């Protein structure tokens, strides 16, 4: 086990991760781009925070920053703090970071085939993760691997440890990746689009598995996805990101029942729902996400926003409290029309 003092589990609901004013920059051919700009959020023990947004909104970069896994040398954290159990991961030593990565925070990536080593047997890869942070023999590690594979619902795990990733289906591979993330019994798991590459019936299996394991192991989860349905059904809290900033953050019921940012509303209105009448025209958000090198001044959503005023182009909004933990980054949220559940 890793350092004992920090590993005592915090009580459910207590803040486990506190990200404050995170800023991340990338060097690109076109110059320096700020992919994440002043993002703050907290993750409570035993709960799931969903981060939702479209391509390029900075949700994956935010997740990678937590474990300082940004692509090097282009990406770097240029501001803010990432407080995990009181230590700032943004400035932590490589040694501390290594302990956190191997013993306290696990990571699940979207594409299991790229997260697994194609030329190593499943058992070897899992054992390696276990050996890294537990002083056990290779044999005991393999036994634990088999136990873990069984836990994530892989049939005949004692056979599977001898197989290579290509011999497994996409859903099974994702189970292996989950098993690896859980090998260190982490307090926090960061899952970046864990089910996006999977079919819906397999997605349902994986989400159910993650929920069950979360309850059993009392983990916290950061779930990154573009799918508002997945967010609604699995998360307690939501962070809506747009063009590198927080649009809106709060408990899941508040965000879905009283969305207060025009972008959140636009997203909720634009997705086709099963109960809509066929061929009805969907609401849309005009235009498209701006490029990071070409962001509008003031509020970054202003060029697509139906409620834009002069103030929106002049001044970036700060996060305003709506009610309780629900906060929104919009100058005009108070003046928006009352929200009605979309019905096309």
């Amino acid at each position: 086990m890793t350092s004992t003092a920090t590993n005592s589990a915090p009580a459910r609901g207590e803040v486990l991760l506190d990200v404050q004013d995170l800023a991340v920059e990338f060097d690109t051919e076109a110059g320096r781009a700020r992919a994440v700009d002043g993002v703050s959020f907290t993750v409570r023990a035993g709960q799931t925070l969903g981060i939702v947004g479209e391509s390029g909104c900075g949700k994956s970069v935010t997740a990678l920053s937590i474990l300082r896994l940004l692509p090097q040398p282009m990406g770097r954290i240029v501001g803010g703090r990432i407080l995990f159990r009181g230590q700032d991961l943004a400035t932590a030593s490589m040694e501390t970071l290594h302990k956190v990565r191997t013993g306290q925070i696990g990571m699940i990536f979207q594409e299991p085939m790229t997260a697994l080593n194609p030329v190593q047997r499943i058992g070897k890869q899992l054992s390696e993760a276990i050996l890294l942070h537990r002083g056990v023999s290779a044999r005991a590690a393999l036994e634990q691997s088999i136990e873990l594979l069984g836990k994530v619902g892989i049939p005949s795990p004692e056979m599977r440890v001898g197989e290579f990733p290509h011999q497994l289906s996409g859903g099974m591979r994702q189970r292996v990746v989950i098993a690896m993330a859980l090998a260190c019994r982490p307090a926090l798991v960061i899952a970046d689009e864990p089910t996006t590459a999977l079919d819906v019936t397999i997605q349902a299996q994986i989400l159910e598995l993650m929920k069950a394991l979360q309850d059993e192991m009392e983990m916290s989860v950061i779930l990154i996805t573009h799918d508002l349905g997945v967010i609604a059904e699995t998360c307690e809290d939501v962070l809506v990101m747009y063009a590198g900033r927080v649009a809106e953050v709060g408990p899941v019921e508040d965000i879905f029942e009283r969305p207060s940012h025009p972008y959140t509303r636009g997203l909720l209105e634009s997705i086709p729902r099963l109960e809509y009448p066929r061929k009805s025209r969907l609401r849309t958000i005009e235009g498209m996400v701006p490029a990071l090198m070409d962001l509008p001044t003031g509020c970054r959503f202003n060029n697509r926003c139906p409620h834009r005023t002069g103030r929106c182009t002049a001044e970036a909004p700060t996060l305003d409290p709506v009610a309780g933990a629900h906060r929104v980054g919009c100058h005009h949220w108070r003046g928006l029309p009352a929200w009605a559940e979309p019905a096309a």
Partner: protein
Amino acid sequence: MSAPLLEVRDLRTWFPVRGGVLLAARGQCKAVDGVSLSVWPGETVGLVGESGCGKSTLGKSIVRLVKPTAGQVLFNGTDLASLPRRRLKPFRREVQMIFQDPADSLNSRLTVGSMLEEPFLIHGIGDDASRREKALELLRVVGLPPAAIDRFPFEFSGGQRQRIGIARAIALNPKLIICDEPVSALDASIQSQILNLLLDLQERLRLSYLFIAHDLAVVKHVSDRIAIMYLGHVVESGDGEEVYRHPRHPYTRALISAVPQPVPRRQRYRQVLSGEVPSPIDPPPGCPFQPRCPHVQPVCREQRPLLREVGGSGLAVHTVACHFDL
């Protein structure tokens, strides 16, 4: 409207599975295994299923990007499945295709203008000036600025590239467009723009669509009728609303219940299927769904259920391939 535009009859597309030293055929991958469906003028038929169910192979077999093994693809009465390649050209004008990833399906070395003029060139329509005129008109129809004509695909976002793909598909005034996952690579806010565009074009140009996708909510939204595919077979079909409200096949039910809905804390029954889709190289005996079916009975392991009528009539007939009335 007295005859279907497209009628697929008992279509099979099998691929030989090769192996060994001499790459001898060792078996057959039955990607599409006896599918029948029809598309009538002006309607959209949605085809839903998960990866490997054969929905894309079916689409490609219809436009003859893949040669079907058996069965018929009747387009206005002519069987495209058996036509020699050189005689397909006139039908290429009538049946077009839109692909999932416009980045892969657009030639990166051609300007948008030359890409849109190419169909006219191939079919010997108009002169240089009138072709450019047509290309500009197409851009306007799909909502792109005229300046796009001299630019290359990489200069566009995913949504704009899909608009280019759509412009190319409608260039020759086709009657039928096979849309293969046209919005699944797009972000939510862009997806709705493209779906609206497809709906508008259908009305204006009286197009018929065969709309293939894995996302049930998307397919149901744009389709008049839908068919659910599983392991090379259609397991249920009928009016979209009817199939969604009263699904009869256990797979359809599981599929509907697996779609995550953007409504938090909704207490609802979710049927999580165990197991995975079997391989079409070695399909299970009997019903293709039986290894995962929560209602499986001995007969399911022995006999493959055929599609039978369970309600509706005429075009809206509701059919299901299950031995039981659940």
